[in-house]
Protein backbone atom coordinates (compact mmCIF):
# COMPACT_ATOMS: atom_id res chain seq x y z
CA UNK A 1 0.00 0.00 0.00
CA UNK A 2 2.82 2.42 0.86
CA UNK A 3 4.31 2.81 -2.64
CA UNK A 4 0.89 3.67 -4.08
CA UNK A 5 0.20 6.15 -1.27
CA UNK A 6 3.51 7.83 -1.88
CA UNK A 7 2.89 8.14 -5.62
CA UNK A 8 -0.71 9.34 -5.37
CA UNK A 9 -0.82 11.39 -2.18
CA UNK A 10 2.69 12.78 -1.95
CA UNK A 11 3.90 13.08 -5.53
CA UNK A 12 0.78 13.51 -7.63
CA UNK A 13 -1.71 15.35 -5.41
CA UNK A 14 0.88 16.91 -3.04
CA UNK A 15 -1.61 16.66 -0.17
CA UNK A 16 0.87 15.57 2.47
CA UNK A 17 4.58 15.13 2.96
CA UNK A 18 6.13 11.70 2.87
CA UNK A 19 6.84 11.90 6.60
CA UNK A 20 3.17 12.54 7.36
CA UNK A 21 2.13 9.54 5.32
CA UNK A 22 4.67 7.35 7.10
CA UNK A 23 3.42 8.62 10.48
CA UNK A 24 -0.17 7.84 9.61
CA UNK A 25 0.86 4.42 8.40
CA UNK A 26 2.58 3.73 11.70
CA UNK A 27 -0.42 4.89 13.76
CA UNK A 28 -2.86 3.09 11.44
CA UNK A 29 -1.05 -0.15 12.19
CA UNK A 30 -0.98 0.32 15.93
CA UNK A 31 -4.68 0.84 16.48
CA UNK A 32 -7.68 -1.44 16.07
CA UNK A 33 -9.34 -1.81 12.69
CA UNK A 34 -8.33 -2.48 9.11
CA UNK A 35 -4.97 -0.84 8.50
CA UNK A 36 -5.65 0.41 4.96
CA UNK A 37 -8.95 1.98 6.03
CA UNK A 38 -7.29 3.62 9.03
CA UNK A 39 -4.50 5.12 6.94
CA UNK A 40 -6.96 6.33 4.31
CA UNK A 41 -9.15 7.81 7.03
CA UNK A 42 -6.26 9.77 8.54
CA UNK A 43 -5.29 11.22 5.19
CA UNK A 44 -8.93 12.10 4.43
CA UNK A 45 -9.31 13.78 7.82
CA UNK A 46 -6.27 15.95 7.17
CA UNK A 47 -7.90 17.26 4.00
CA UNK A 48 -11.57 17.61 4.90
CA UNK A 49 -12.15 16.64 8.54
CA UNK A 50 -14.92 14.10 9.23
CA UNK A 51 -16.31 14.14 5.70
CA UNK A 52 -12.85 13.54 4.31
CA UNK A 53 -12.26 10.57 6.58
CA UNK A 54 -15.59 9.00 5.60
CA UNK A 55 -14.97 9.63 1.90
CA UNK A 56 -11.50 8.11 2.04
CA UNK A 57 -12.70 5.04 3.94
CA UNK A 58 -15.49 4.49 1.42
CA UNK A 59 -12.96 4.92 -1.36
CA UNK A 60 -10.77 2.17 0.09
CA UNK A 61 -13.60 -0.33 0.41
CA UNK A 62 -15.53 0.32 -2.80
CA UNK A 63 -13.25 -1.70 -5.12
CA UNK A 64 -13.41 -4.61 -2.66
CA UNK A 65 -17.19 -4.51 -2.58
CA UNK A 66 -17.43 -4.57 -6.37
CA UNK A 67 -14.71 -7.12 -7.12
CA UNK A 68 -15.54 -9.55 -4.33
CA UNK A 69 -19.27 -9.41 -5.05
CA UNK A 70 -18.66 -10.32 -8.68
CA UNK A 71 -16.29 -13.17 -7.80
CA UNK A 72 -18.54 -14.51 -5.04
CA UNK A 73 -21.53 -14.42 -7.38
CA UNK A 74 -19.63 -16.29 -10.11
CA UNK A 75 -18.22 -18.81 -7.67
CA UNK A 76 -21.55 -19.66 -6.09
CA UNK A 77 -22.80 -20.73 -9.52
CA UNK A 78 -19.94 -23.18 -10.00
CA UNK A 79 -19.45 -24.38 -6.45
CA UNK A 80 -21.00 -27.78 -7.06
CA UNK A 81 -19.07 -28.36 -10.25
CA UNK A 82 -16.71 -31.31 -9.71
CA UNK A 83 -13.74 -29.61 -11.39
CA UNK A 84 -14.18 -26.46 -9.35
CA UNK A 85 -14.27 -28.62 -6.19
CA UNK A 86 -11.00 -30.35 -7.14
CA UNK A 87 -9.35 -26.99 -7.77
CA UNK A 88 -10.70 -25.43 -4.57
CA UNK A 89 -9.70 -28.32 -2.38
CA UNK A 90 -6.06 -27.96 -3.45
CA UNK A 91 -6.39 -24.20 -3.03
CA UNK A 92 -7.58 -24.68 0.53
CA UNK A 93 -4.46 -26.69 1.34
CA UNK A 94 -2.47 -23.80 -0.10
CA UNK A 95 -4.47 -21.36 2.04
CA UNK A 96 -3.44 -23.26 5.17
CA UNK A 97 0.19 -22.86 4.19
CA UNK A 98 -0.35 -19.13 3.58
CA UNK A 99 -2.01 -18.71 6.97
CA UNK A 100 0.85 -20.57 8.63
CA UNK A 101 3.29 -18.25 6.88
CA UNK A 102 1.49 -15.16 8.18
CA UNK A 103 1.32 -16.61 11.69
CA UNK A 104 5.09 -17.03 11.59
CA UNK A 105 5.66 -13.42 10.57
CA UNK A 106 3.19 -12.18 13.21
CA UNK A 107 4.98 -14.35 15.75
CA UNK A 108 8.29 -12.71 14.88
CA UNK A 109 6.79 -9.25 15.34
CA UNK A 110 4.60 -9.89 18.37
CA UNK A 111 5.92 -12.68 20.56
CA UNK A 112 9.03 -11.18 22.04
CA UNK A 113 9.37 -12.64 25.53
CA UNK A 114 7.94 -15.18 27.94
CA UNK A 115 4.90 -13.00 28.63
CA UNK A 116 4.09 -12.94 24.93
CA UNK A 117 4.58 -16.67 24.66
CA UNK A 118 2.27 -17.37 27.60
CA UNK A 119 -0.43 -15.12 26.14
CA UNK A 120 -0.05 -16.82 22.76
CA UNK A 121 -0.47 -20.24 24.37
CA UNK A 122 -3.44 -19.20 26.52
CA UNK A 123 -5.25 -17.74 23.52
CA UNK A 124 -4.58 -20.78 21.37
CA UNK A 125 -6.02 -23.06 24.04
CA UNK A 126 -8.93 -20.78 24.96
CA UNK A 127 -9.97 -20.34 21.35
CA UNK A 128 -9.69 -24.04 20.55
CA UNK A 129 -11.28 -25.58 23.62
CA UNK A 130 -13.70 -23.00 24.97
CA UNK A 131 -16.57 -20.96 23.60
CA UNK A 132 -15.18 -17.67 24.92
CA UNK A 133 -15.64 -14.85 22.46
CA UNK A 134 -12.42 -13.70 20.77
CA UNK A 135 -13.58 -10.12 21.44
CA UNK A 136 -13.33 -10.75 25.17
CA UNK A 137 -9.98 -12.50 24.74
CA UNK A 138 -8.53 -9.52 22.87
CA UNK A 139 -9.80 -7.08 25.51
CA UNK A 140 -8.36 -9.23 28.31
CA UNK A 141 -4.99 -9.44 26.59
CA UNK A 142 -4.91 -5.65 26.17
CA UNK A 143 -5.66 -5.22 29.88
CA UNK A 144 -3.06 -7.89 30.65
CA UNK A 145 -0.44 -6.05 28.62
CA UNK A 146 -1.18 -2.77 30.42
CA UNK A 147 -1.04 -4.36 33.88
CA UNK A 148 2.11 -6.36 33.16
CA UNK A 149 4.00 -3.43 31.67
CA UNK A 150 2.83 -1.01 34.37
CA UNK A 151 3.90 -3.38 37.12
CA UNK A 152 7.22 -3.87 35.38
CA UNK A 153 7.72 -0.10 35.31
CA UNK A 154 6.62 0.16 38.93
CA UNK A 155 9.10 -2.45 40.09
CA UNK A 156 11.93 -0.92 38.10
CA UNK A 157 11.22 2.54 39.54
CA UNK A 158 10.33 1.75 43.13
CA UNK A 159 12.96 -0.81 43.89
CA UNK A 160 13.79 0.89 47.16
CA UNK A 161 10.26 1.48 48.40
CA UNK A 162 8.95 -1.59 50.10
CA UNK A 163 5.31 -2.57 50.34
CA UNK A 164 3.09 -0.14 48.49
CA UNK A 165 0.57 -1.33 45.95
CA UNK A 166 2.01 -4.16 43.99
CA UNK A 167 -0.94 -6.05 42.63
Amino acid at each position, binding site marked *: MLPILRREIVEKEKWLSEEDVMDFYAIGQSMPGIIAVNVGGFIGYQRKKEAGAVAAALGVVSPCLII*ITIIAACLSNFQDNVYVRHALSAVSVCVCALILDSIISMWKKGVKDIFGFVLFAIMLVAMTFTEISPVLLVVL*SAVGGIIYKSLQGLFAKNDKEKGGKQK
Partner: protein
Amino acid sequence: MIYLKLFYEFFKIGLFAVGGGMATLPFLQRLGESTGWFDQMLITDMVAISESTPGPIGINMATYVGYNVAGFWGGFAATMGEVMPCVVLVILFSKFLNKLSGNKYLDFAFYGMRPAVTGLIAAAAVSVMQVAVFNTELFKQTGVITDLADPKKIIYFVIVFWAIKKFKKHPITYIAASAVIGLIFMF
Protein backbone atom coordinates in the same frame (compact mmCIF):
# COMPACT_ATOMS: atom_id res chain seq x y z
CA MET B 1 -33.06 -8.50 10.55
CA ILE B 2 -30.11 -10.17 8.90
CA TYR B 3 -28.49 -6.98 7.57
CA LEU B 4 -28.46 -5.32 10.98
CA LYS B 5 -27.08 -8.48 12.54
CA LEU B 6 -24.34 -8.63 9.90
CA PHE B 7 -23.54 -4.97 10.43
CA TYR B 8 -23.33 -5.46 14.18
CA GLU B 9 -21.19 -8.60 14.02
CA PHE B 10 -18.73 -7.02 11.61
CA PHE B 11 -18.69 -3.80 13.60
CA LYS B 12 -17.34 -5.85 16.50
CA ILE B 13 -14.80 -7.49 14.23
CA GLY B 14 -13.63 -4.12 12.89
CA LEU B 15 -13.26 -2.83 16.41
CA PHE B 16 -11.34 -5.75 17.85
CA ALA B 17 -9.33 -7.11 14.93
CA VAL B 18 -5.85 -5.88 15.68
CA GLY B 19 -2.82 -6.42 13.50
CA GLY B 20 -4.15 -6.39 9.95
CA GLY B 21 -4.42 -9.09 7.31
CA MET B 22 -5.42 -12.35 8.92
CA ALA B 23 -6.49 -10.69 12.19
CA THR B 24 -10.19 -11.02 11.35
CA LEU B 25 -9.88 -14.76 10.71
CA PRO B 26 -10.51 -16.08 14.24
CA PHE B 27 -13.52 -13.78 14.59
CA LEU B 28 -15.00 -15.01 11.33
CA GLN B 29 -14.42 -18.61 12.26
CA ARG B 30 -16.19 -18.16 15.57
CA LEU B 31 -18.97 -16.21 13.84
CA GLY B 32 -19.58 -19.17 11.52
CA GLU B 33 -19.69 -21.57 14.45
CA SER B 34 -22.01 -19.51 16.60
CA THR B 35 -24.49 -18.39 13.94
CA GLY B 36 -24.36 -21.31 11.53
CA TRP B 37 -24.28 -18.82 8.66
CA PHE B 38 -21.42 -20.61 6.89
CA ASP B 39 -19.14 -23.61 7.36
CA GLN B 40 -15.37 -24.00 7.55
CA MET B 41 -15.04 -24.72 3.83
CA LEU B 42 -16.27 -21.24 3.04
CA ILE B 43 -13.44 -19.85 5.16
CA THR B 44 -10.69 -21.33 3.01
CA ASP B 45 -12.44 -20.18 -0.18
CA MET B 46 -12.77 -16.76 1.42
CA VAL B 47 -9.08 -16.50 2.31
CA ALA B 48 -8.07 -17.70 -1.16
CA ILE B 49 -10.25 -15.11 -2.88
CA SER B 50 -9.27 -12.31 -0.50
CA GLU B 51 -5.59 -13.01 -1.01
CA SER B 52 -5.93 -13.17 -4.79
CA THR B 53 -7.75 -9.88 -5.24
CA PRO B 54 -6.54 -6.34 -4.64
CA GLY B 55 -7.70 -4.46 -1.58
CA PRO B 56 -7.30 -5.05 2.15
CA ILE B 57 -7.77 -8.72 3.04
CA GLY B 58 -9.95 -7.94 6.06
CA ILE B 59 -12.41 -5.99 3.91
CA ASN B 60 -12.42 -8.60 1.16
CA MET B 61 -13.26 -11.28 3.69
CA ALA B 62 -16.10 -9.19 5.14
CA THR B 63 -17.64 -8.64 1.72
CA TYR B 64 -17.28 -12.29 0.79
CA VAL B 65 -18.85 -13.61 3.98
CA GLY B 66 -21.63 -11.03 3.92
CA TYR B 67 -22.43 -11.84 0.29
CA ASN B 68 -22.64 -15.55 1.03
CA VAL B 69 -24.90 -14.98 4.00
CA ALA B 70 -27.33 -12.49 2.48
CA GLY B 71 -26.44 -11.52 -1.09
CA PHE B 72 -25.16 -8.13 -2.25
CA TRP B 73 -26.70 -6.13 0.57
CA GLY B 74 -25.35 -8.65 3.05
CA GLY B 75 -21.86 -7.98 1.70
CA PHE B 76 -22.55 -4.27 1.84
CA ALA B 77 -23.79 -4.38 5.44
CA ALA B 78 -20.84 -6.50 6.60
CA THR B 79 -18.31 -4.25 4.87
CA MET B 80 -19.83 -1.06 6.23
CA GLY B 81 -20.01 -2.59 9.68
CA GLU B 82 -16.34 -3.43 9.61
CA VAL B 83 -15.35 0.01 8.31
CA MET B 84 -17.48 2.03 10.73
CA PRO B 85 -15.32 1.57 13.87
CA CYS B 86 -12.20 2.37 11.84
CA VAL B 87 -13.69 5.67 10.70
CA VAL B 88 -14.90 6.61 14.18
CA LEU B 89 -11.56 5.75 15.77
CA VAL B 90 -9.61 7.58 13.09
CA ILE B 91 -11.67 10.72 13.64
CA LEU B 92 -11.22 10.49 17.41
CA PHE B 93 -7.50 9.84 17.04
CA SER B 94 -7.13 12.75 14.64
CA LYS B 95 -8.81 15.12 17.06
CA PHE B 96 -6.60 14.02 19.94
CA LEU B 97 -3.59 12.88 17.96
CA ASN B 98 -1.01 14.78 19.98
CA LYS B 99 -2.21 13.24 23.19
CA LEU B 100 -2.56 9.74 21.83
CA SER B 101 0.38 9.09 19.53
CA GLY B 102 3.07 7.33 21.46
CA ASN B 103 0.75 7.00 24.45
CA LYS B 104 2.44 4.42 26.61
CA TYR B 105 -0.74 2.67 27.68
CA LEU B 106 -1.69 2.18 24.06
CA ASP B 107 1.73 0.63 23.51
CA PHE B 108 1.24 -1.56 26.58
CA ALA B 109 -2.13 -2.74 25.30
CA PHE B 110 -0.57 -3.68 21.98
CA TYR B 111 2.21 -5.44 23.81
CA GLY B 112 -0.49 -7.79 25.11
CA MET B 113 -2.70 -7.90 22.03
CA ARG B 114 -0.08 -8.77 19.41
CA PRO B 115 0.90 -12.17 20.80
CA ALA B 116 -2.73 -12.82 21.79
CA VAL B 117 -4.02 -12.23 18.27
CA THR B 118 -1.26 -14.45 16.92
CA GLY B 119 -2.53 -17.19 19.24
CA LEU B 120 -6.12 -16.65 18.09
CA ILE B 121 -5.10 -16.91 14.44
CA ALA B 122 -3.12 -20.05 15.20
CA ALA B 123 -6.26 -21.57 16.71
CA ALA B 124 -8.24 -20.59 13.62
CA ALA B 125 -5.54 -22.15 11.46
CA VAL B 126 -5.80 -25.42 13.39
CA SER B 127 -9.51 -25.69 12.76
CA VAL B 128 -9.18 -24.71 9.11
CA MET B 129 -6.54 -27.41 8.70
CA GLN B 130 -8.85 -29.97 10.24
CA VAL B 131 -11.12 -29.42 7.28
CA ALA B 132 -8.71 -28.59 4.48
CA VAL B 133 -5.80 -30.97 5.09
CA PHE B 134 -7.08 -33.54 7.54
CA ASN B 135 -10.49 -35.09 7.89
CA THR B 136 -10.99 -35.22 11.63
CA GLU B 137 -14.76 -35.65 11.35
CA LEU B 138 -14.44 -38.84 9.32
CA PHE B 139 -11.67 -40.08 11.60
CA LYS B 140 -13.86 -39.59 14.67
CA GLN B 141 -16.59 -41.67 13.07
CA THR B 142 -14.49 -44.53 11.72
CA GLY B 143 -11.41 -44.47 13.94
CA VAL B 144 -9.35 -45.64 10.98
CA ILE B 145 -6.06 -43.75 10.87
CA THR B 146 -5.98 -43.67 7.06
CA ASP B 147 -9.24 -41.74 7.16
CA LEU B 148 -7.60 -38.98 9.16
CA ALA B 149 -5.50 -37.58 6.39
CA ASP B 150 -5.04 -37.79 2.69
CA PRO B 151 -1.27 -38.23 2.22
CA LYS B 152 -1.52 -36.31 -1.04
CA LYS B 153 -2.76 -33.25 0.83
CA ILE B 154 -0.12 -33.46 3.53
CA ILE B 155 2.67 -33.75 0.99
CA TYR B 156 1.20 -30.89 -0.96
CA PHE B 157 0.94 -28.76 2.18
CA VAL B 158 4.64 -29.26 2.88
CA ILE B 159 5.57 -28.45 -0.71
CA VAL B 160 3.48 -25.26 -0.83
CA PHE B 161 4.80 -24.05 2.50
CA TRP B 162 8.35 -24.65 1.34
CA ALA B 163 7.64 -22.78 -1.90
CA ILE B 164 6.14 -19.80 -0.03
CA LYS B 165 9.23 -19.55 2.15
CA LYS B 166 11.62 -20.11 -0.73
CA PHE B 167 10.24 -17.86 -3.48
CA LYS B 168 8.37 -15.17 -1.52
CA LYS B 169 5.97 -14.48 -4.39
CA HIS B 170 2.55 -12.86 -4.10
CA PRO B 171 -0.04 -15.28 -2.63
CA ILE B 172 -2.00 -15.28 -5.90
CA THR B 173 0.87 -17.20 -7.52
CA TYR B 174 0.49 -20.13 -5.15
CA ILE B 175 -3.29 -20.01 -5.20
CA ALA B 176 -3.45 -20.09 -9.00
CA ALA B 177 -0.87 -22.88 -9.17
CA SER B 178 -2.83 -24.84 -6.57
CA ALA B 179 -6.03 -24.61 -8.59
CA VAL B 180 -4.26 -26.15 -11.57
CA ILE B 181 -2.60 -28.83 -9.45
CA GLY B 182 -5.94 -29.64 -7.83
CA LEU B 183 -7.46 -30.25 -11.26
CA ILE B 184 -4.56 -32.38 -12.51
CA PHE B 185 -4.18 -34.55 -9.42
CA MET B 186 -7.93 -34.72 -8.63
CA PHE B 187 -7.74 -33.40 -5.06
